[in-house]
């Protein structure tokens, strides 16, 4: 057979030396804002190395015990297992397993130098972003001061997440590890003026991690008159967390259907409410709350009512009696978006208390507008998306304070990136010339038929999280509902991970086109075809490559026929059979390690660059 001519309209061979390529194959790690090495820690859990698994987590996400309970889990919808069968690996729950079963890690935490480097950093707000900055900078000899307006540290992790989801002991322990590095924590110390802090504080850099502390208001008729029984969600949760309020009426309406609303309705049930209704303006497909938080609320008999738009607070004898709603009807287009809406009537729903959970905003009344920090038209400071620096050099933002409400895992990554910027700022280096990410690969081949990872596909279904019984859990406000996986559950769930970080690495020059890999691939993700445009390639493959969000790997031209090896990454289960069946070792299974630099690596790189003085 003659060699096919190379044409202009063909795809170039995939450049796998770009760290992004193999990073993207590890769907969970790619989706995680902090790039947690998920497959690695799940493997360690499977080996019973819980402490090591915890440390892998802590390196990226700092708070494994906290996140193992309440993370928003962007990794799970991304998980390849969810495409291969119905449900993703319970990544978040496994993170908690590492935290639950680990041993003492004090000896494995970084050593804090006794001699400081002379640089002082102020962090405003003792939440996850500031704590991450402190965690990263303390080992380099920085002196970090955290100012917190409340009498307790933890930020919204403590005030807004109820203790029945995240026990205070977990918060105290994980945050305690950071504070024990020698952080100067000033509780009950509210910063009233940034100007004053900059002028008198003597700090080399300021990090603003003050969150998005302002709950949105709902200005409707009757709001002011009913004020005694209408509460702003996040403030109300904070009062409940600190025990300032201990009761709520029997009939409670929650307005809004995000995760805060879920926390409000479940907290109400623990403060004496008997009948809790969550009122949603739109149909279920538009809910902001995570599916699992909705499930947990509905398990506790919370009723979620859709298509009701709040109209007025109704009073009787000067006291809240309920709320009037417009009944809505929506028309959807083919893509599931709302194309038209109609009011079909109104409905009165009685209530003793109403909690507003319709969003939150950041607020900076304490930042003078003439300091050089530019605010945009929504009154939010302009923050660089890479360096997290504001328009005033030396002032950095992170967490919800930077780009509005997100979740803990985002704030942690903001903290890591801001720490790099703060270090470069303090060393007089350009903030933008940061270390690039990298990837290293190492073969997992151990012998003729041995691979140093567990490559058997385990046809196990996702394990269910055991809960405290419905009878027990309402007895106290702080009984943690989720019990955590048992050892058996953890073992089985860990086996569901597909080891996506053990990459299929191909060497075109070794291939003899015997088709062995193509014949054995259980999910038909390999094909040898004539090169063409990406659309042509996708149509030529052995099984339809219909998920354009997942890349195609395209090899260099194969030596015998000039065709190309194409791998559709979408459904690869990383079983290694292609490498096992390859007679020439053109395929190999290699573990990828993604290097996502933190300030420690950044500091070492800067150190090496400095001229040595003899």
């Amino acid at each position: 057979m003659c060699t096919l001519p190379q044409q202009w309209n063909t795809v170039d061979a995939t450049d796998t030396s770009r760290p992004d390529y193999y990073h993207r194959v590890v769907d969970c790690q790619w989706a995680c804002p902090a790039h947690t090495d998920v497959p690695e820690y799940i493997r360690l859990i499977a080996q019973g190395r819980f402490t090591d698994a915890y440390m892998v987590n802590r390196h990226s996400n700092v708070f494994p015990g906290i996140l193992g309970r309440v993370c928003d889990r962007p990794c799970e919808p991304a998980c390849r297992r969810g495409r291969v069968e119905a449900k993703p690996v319970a990544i978040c729950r496994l993170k908690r397993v590492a935290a639950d079963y680990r041993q003492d890690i004090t000896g494995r935490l970084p050593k804090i130098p006794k001699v400081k480097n002379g640089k002082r950093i102020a962090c405003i707000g003792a939440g996850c972003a500031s704590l991450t900055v402190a965690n990263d900078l303390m080992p380099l000899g920085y002196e970090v001061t955290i100012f917190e307006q409340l009498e307790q540290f933890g930020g919204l992790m403590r005030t807004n997440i109820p203790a029945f989801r995240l026990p205070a002991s977990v918060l105290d322990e994980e945050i305690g590890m950071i504070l024990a590095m020698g952080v100067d924590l000033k509780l009950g110390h509210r910063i009233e003026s940034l100007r004053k802090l900059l002028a008198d504080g003597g700090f080399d850099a300021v990090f603003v991690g003050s969150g998005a502390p302002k709950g949105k208001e709902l200005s409707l008729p009757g709001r002011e008159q009913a004020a005694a029984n209408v509460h702003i969600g996040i403030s109300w949760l904070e009062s409940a967390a600190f025990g300032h309020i201990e009761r709520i009426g029997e009939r409670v309406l929650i307005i809004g259907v995000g995760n805060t609303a879920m926390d409000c309705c479940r907290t109400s049930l623990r403060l004496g409410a008997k009948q809790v209704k969550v009122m949603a303006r739109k149909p279920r497909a538009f809910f902001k709350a995570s599916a699992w938080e909705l499930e947990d609320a509905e398990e506790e008999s919370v009723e979620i009512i859709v298509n009701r738009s709040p109209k007025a607070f109704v009073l009787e004898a000067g006291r809240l009696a309920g709320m009037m709603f417009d009944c809505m009807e929506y028309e959807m287009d083919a893509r599931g978006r709302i194309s038209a809406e109609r009011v079909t009537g109104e409905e009165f729903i009685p209530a003793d208390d109403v909690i507003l959970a319709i969003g939150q905003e950041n607020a900076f009344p304490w930042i003078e507008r003439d300091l050089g920090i530019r605010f945009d038209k929504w009154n939010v400071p302009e923050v660089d998306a890479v360096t997290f620096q504001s328009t005033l050099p030396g002032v950095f933002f992170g967490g919800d304070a930077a780009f509005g409400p997100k979740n803990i895992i985002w704030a942690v990554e903001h903290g890591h990136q801001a720490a790099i910027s703060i270090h470069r700022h303090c060393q007089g280096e350009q903030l933008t010339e940061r270390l690039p990410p990298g990837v290293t690969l190492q073969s997992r081949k151990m012998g003729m038929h041995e691979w140093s990872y567990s490559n058997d596909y385990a046809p196990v279904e996702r394990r269910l999280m055991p809960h405290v019984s419905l009878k027990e859990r309402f007895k106290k406000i702080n009984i943690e509902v989720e019990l955590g996986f048992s050892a058996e559950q953890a073992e089985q769930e860990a086996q569901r991970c597909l080891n996506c970080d053990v990459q299929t690495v191909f060497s075109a020059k070794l291939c003899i086109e015997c088709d062995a890999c193509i014949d054995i691939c259980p999910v038909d993700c390999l094909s040898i075809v004539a090169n063409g445009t990406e659309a042509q390639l996708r149509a030529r493959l052995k099984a339809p490559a219909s998920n354009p969000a997942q890349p195609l790997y395209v090899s260099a031209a194969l030596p015998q026929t000039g065709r190309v090896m194409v791998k559709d990454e979408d459904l690869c289960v990383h079983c290694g059979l292609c490498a096992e069946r390859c007679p020439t070792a053109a395929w190999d299974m290699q573990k990828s390690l993604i290097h996502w630099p933190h300030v420690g690596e950044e500091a070492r790189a800067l150190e090496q660059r400095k001229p040595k003085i003899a």
Partner: protein
Amino acid sequence: MTFIAKPKVSHPSLPRNALGFTRRDYEGALSTLCAGCGHDSITAAIVEACWGLSLEPQNLVKLSGIGCSSKTTAYFVSGGHGFNSVHGRMPSIATGANAANRRLSYIGVSGDGDTLSIGLGQFCHAIRRNLDMLYLIENNGVYGLTKGQFSASADIGTRAKKGDTNLQPPIDPVLLALDLGATFVARGFSGDKRQLVPLIEAGLRHRGFALIDVLSPCVTFNDHEGSTKSYAYTREHHERTVLADFVPREREITVEYEPGEAREVALHDGSRIVLRKLETDYDPTDRAAAAAKVQQRMSEGEHLTGLIYLDARGERPEFHQVSATPAEPLNSLPYEVLSPGSRGLAKILERYR
């Protein structure tokens, strides 16, 4: 070989055939052949063909003799019937089974040793009888299971892994089959499934003896420089004569062919083979011309592949017509019909007195 079983997980959008099965439902046991063996590719092509024909697994009979090739019947359609015979005696078993039940599809998988050395006599008589079966030779020119001696199909001048040169002329199963009057003669290459799968489909549907000689490189003992049956050599020297597209009865012909380029041949069950000539002067229904062409290309060191000869007019009767076997399987016939009884037996014996 591999020790890791192919996991049961599969692509969620794999197409299903008329029976609702995916390709994966036609797989068999874990292959114990060397990694990269051409035979495994042929197995995959058989799986693909059986799936494409919507064959009911219980209606397939898999027969084999001894050798690497003969192990492969275990690696496809685990729901079918199987018989692993004595070395070179697969055609006898196929003849017996076929005589007893003509309702089933018979596929015999053999190798160059099993067919052309120890089993050559049996092979010839199966062709002569025009036995209704697909006979597939996985031909690698080497005795793999006994560590790499030249087989009867090794070409003159081909070199063994240790450097010896073969001086004996090869037996070419395609020429032999043409000579003995086979009604369907094809050659394929394990590394070209686009050609091989339709050949297997057509061969299974052909009524009478269908031979497909598949060049199947031995990755362990015969894939080096100097071998005429390596992947590299075969790829460079396999010349495709006629492309055969198989069109099952249920399907319309959807591909547009250039006028004069394609020729349709109907099979007994209503399915069709569309022959597309790659060379204008080649006629795959002319037995003498086909033999001459194969011989000519062979002398030039080329492997002629594709559907080389087809008895398109159905001139030669097949085994059942000649032997007047009953249409119904013997096991479904009433005892009175099957057994002549003592009076009938006496009558038969009388004939020989």
